[in-house]
């Protein structure tokens, strides 16, 4: 049974840390979760809410009603009361404010505890964490252990201080509200092998798994935590991470590093990606592998930085002037993000062209559980496939852009003795020298284009089908992070199937059309206002889907709004 916990309060007072600690306790107790933070684009002021949906099986979508609402201020209650039911428990301090009747109440004397223990107001979070763990039947010792490791570096006094507040919060609930506590996360005796991570964490980890040695970025919400995570791993992962002066420098540096022979990647959101587009085209003609992590937020321009949208699919697909092959991958969840990121580096090397891995604020920032056995397994089984990247060329003289049947030429890592060549942003002949002859132009355009055909033959993956496509009356068609909410609909409704795209560009028209021949009602489900996957399917595969369910207010799509529109 899904269970929903929310903590809300003023921004800048530690809600994020508290929420993540709660999520980790849920995971360590042996349960699955999906969490999501709503916050304005401010450092302080405004409202933060951290929502955690808990279940004994993997969670695809957030639960829409709230079981426990922890209010650190009155605004939290006012903003979330529409999500409450008569069974919901509201945790608050009745010395601070009053709330409407009609819900179950747990009074935690935040103010009194802070007064008695002479705590700063930020410790309110810590009390709330203890109270929350009690309310959902968690293990206090587990929380205490976690606090110890979290604050170890700051000294014993800080550890003891935090423990004190956690315990006060826990005790105040257990002693006075035993009846309202539910064993939602009663520790599961099975050994716990779960990790709690966001889509951004997953990209960072996938990049390390793939042996990415150079990551360059300029901070931009919601992609920034990839930069900060990888920056903190530079020694452990033996890589170089550079925060460059702007996104143009970011991608050109990464292209330079890739030319130097290391796997290189960049990360950004729509606005930063717009600045990178000229260099995407450079990577296309110079045939330099590059992996771009593009985490979308609502645009245009600065848009709504801390909210979610899938508004950049067609932009990514069409990014770059001139004609050249490009691959766009759109993982649907954290597990797919790790796997497809690792795959993206292989594809970039194999096809020597840009590969874009797309995310959005929801996937980038929501935590969910993944199996550490699977992650470690991927690391040990994945052997980076560098395609035709060589340390020494097969033929002499070496021809960097030698015309080949599959469109790919040997890429020599600079440094081999007795050779040299240039990678060229101008059109060129096979040896890399600038050429404007009609013959060279045609030969190189056709060679580059052939890479796309080779990809479709060898590495394109058909969309994943969930449910029974043959018998379904309604087929939901989605890409990227909308997978979760569509799977939720599949769980709740009969006669549904879901088609989810991960290898979203280029598309294989012939093979795809077979999936769209059924008599069922096909419905596009997208987090944008113009149904961009629908447009792409028409353009790339001649598939026309009339009906779409679209959301573009920055808030993640819910299962109930899909159900309401298909029934």
């Amino acid at each position, binding site marked *: 049974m899904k269970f929903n916990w929310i903590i809300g309060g003023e921004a800048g007072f530690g809600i994020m840390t508290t929420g993540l600690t709660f999520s*980790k306790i849920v*995971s360590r107790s042996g349960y699955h979760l999906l969490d999501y933070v709503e916050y304005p684009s401010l450092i302080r002021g405004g409202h933060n809410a951290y929502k955690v949906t808990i279940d004994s099986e993997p969670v695809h979508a957030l639960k829409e009603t709230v079981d426990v609402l922890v209010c650190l201020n009155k605004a939290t209650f006012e903003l979330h009361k529409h999500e409450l039911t008569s069974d919901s428990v509201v945790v608050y301090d009745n010395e601070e404010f009053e709330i409407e009747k009609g819900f179950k109440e747990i009074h935690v004397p935040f103010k009194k505890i802070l007064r008695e223990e002479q705590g700063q107001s930020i410790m309110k979070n810590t009390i709330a964490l203890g109270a929350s763990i009690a309310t959902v039947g968690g293990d206090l010792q587990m929380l205490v252990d976690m606090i110890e490791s979290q604050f170890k570096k700051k000294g014993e006094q800080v550890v003891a201080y935090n423990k004190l507040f956690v315990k006060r919060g826990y005790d105040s609930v257990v002693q006075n509200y035993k009846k309202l506590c539910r064993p939602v996360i009663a520790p599961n005796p099975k050994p716990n092998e*779960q*990790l*709690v*991570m966001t889509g951004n*964490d997953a990209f960072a*980890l996938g990049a*390390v*798994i793939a*042996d990415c*040695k*150079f990551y*360059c970025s300029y901070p931009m919400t919601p992609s920034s935590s990839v930069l900060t995570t990888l920056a903190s*791993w*530079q*020694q*452990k992962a*033996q890589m*170089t991470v*550079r925060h*460059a*002066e702007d996104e*143009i*420098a*970011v991608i*050109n*540096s990464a*292209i*330079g*590093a*890739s*030319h*130097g*022979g*290391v796997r*290189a990647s960049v990360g950004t959101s729509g606005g930063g990606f717009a600045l990178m587009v*000229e*260099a995407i085209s*450079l990577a296309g003609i*110079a045939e330099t592998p590059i992996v771009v992590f593009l985490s979308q937020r609502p645009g245009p321009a600065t848009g709504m930085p801390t909210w979610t949208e899938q508004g950049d699919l067609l932009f990514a697909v069409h990014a770059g002037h001139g004609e050249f092959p490009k691959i766009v991958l759109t993982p649907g969840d954290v597990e797919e993000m790790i796997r497809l990121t690792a795959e993206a580096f292989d594809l970039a090397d194999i096809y020597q062209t840009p590969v874009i891995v797309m995310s959005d604020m929801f996937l980038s920032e929501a935590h969910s559980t993944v199996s*550490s056995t699977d*992650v*470690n397994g991927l*690391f040990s089984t994945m052997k980076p496939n560098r395609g035709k990247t060589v340390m020494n060329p097969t033929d002499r003289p070496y021809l960097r852009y030698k015309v080949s049947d599959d469109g790919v030429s040997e890429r020599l*890592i*600079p*440094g*081999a*003795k*007795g*050779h*040299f*060549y*240039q*990678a*060229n*942003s101008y059109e060129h002949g096979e040896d890399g*020298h*600038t050429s404007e002859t009609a013959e060279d132009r045609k030969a190189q355009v056709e060679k580059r284009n052939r890479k796309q055909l080779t990809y479709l033959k060898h590495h394109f993956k058909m969309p994943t089908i969930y449910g029974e496509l043959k018998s379904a009356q309604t087929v939901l068609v989605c890409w990227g992070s909308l997978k979760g909410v569509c799977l939720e609909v599949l769980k709740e409704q009969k006669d549904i199937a879901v088609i989810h795209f991960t290898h979203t560009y280029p598309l294989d028209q012939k093979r795809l059309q077979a999936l769209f021949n059924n008599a069922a009602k096909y419905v596009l489900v997208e987090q944008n206002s113009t149904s961009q996957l629908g447009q792409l399917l028409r353009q790339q595969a001649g598939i026309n889907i009339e009906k779409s369910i679209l959301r573009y207010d920055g808030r993640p799509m819910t299962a109930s709004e899909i159900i309401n529109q298909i029934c």
Partner: protein
Amino acid sequence: MLAKKRKFSGHTPTWCPGCGDWAIGGAIKEALANQDLDPSGVGVVFGIGCSGNMNDFLNAYAYHALHGRAIPTAVGLKLANHSMPTLVIAGDGDTYGEGGNHFFHACRGNHDLTIIVHDNGVYGLTTGQVAPTALKGTISKSTPTGIIERSVSPLAFAISQGATFVAQSFAGDIPHMREMIELGMKHKGLSLVNVLQPCVTFNRVNTYQYYLKKSYRVGADYDPSSYAGALVKAIEMDEEKFPLGVIYQTASQPYHEQVPAYQQDKPLVQIPRISTLHDLVEEFR
């Protein structure tokens, strides 16, 4: 020496007869040959313009980058393989105009690159519009009533933003250019060699005669280690006085030696994939 130099010769250049690029190209090859390098041992990133066209005339492990972006491309190349000396060959429009932001930050970072700028005051390849180095009032196709902006002061800018080697030379003096390029390449950290280069086709002001008259070599008594002194020297350019030689030099650790994964004898490209994910994965438990 001649044989060593010839190894660097690619296609026959397409520059205009009398263009300063011929001499700069020759000086670069001499500087490389003089250091016993061969084309397999040098990384060069070219900008876009007449200078960048040298990509076809100079043999090396090269990347012909985007206009304005040669510097960041070279920054990445150097970080991937710090064992390879890395040059940037670009024009004044490329370096001080389109790529000004990158130049500024590359100086701050003290990246171990030698940036050779062909400073000719015009955009030759697009037939003669003003470059940011053009003197205020210069009339060109894009500024028919004279350019309103004053010219950039490249040496002073580089010095003040953290470049650790700043030199100026003149395309009419091959031995001097070769010497400046060699000194720049031997210097650890960012070296700028700004080369005053007549464009015989589109620049009627900054001619060979003009530079012969207005440039001079800094004397043996000049001290390039003084930051303040170097700035005073560098801004002479604003008054159309062009000092030639090493204007500023100071010792400072280059960027690549300060990155956390740096290994002196093992460039990034040779560092193997890590053997376990354990430490990283534990963070997420």
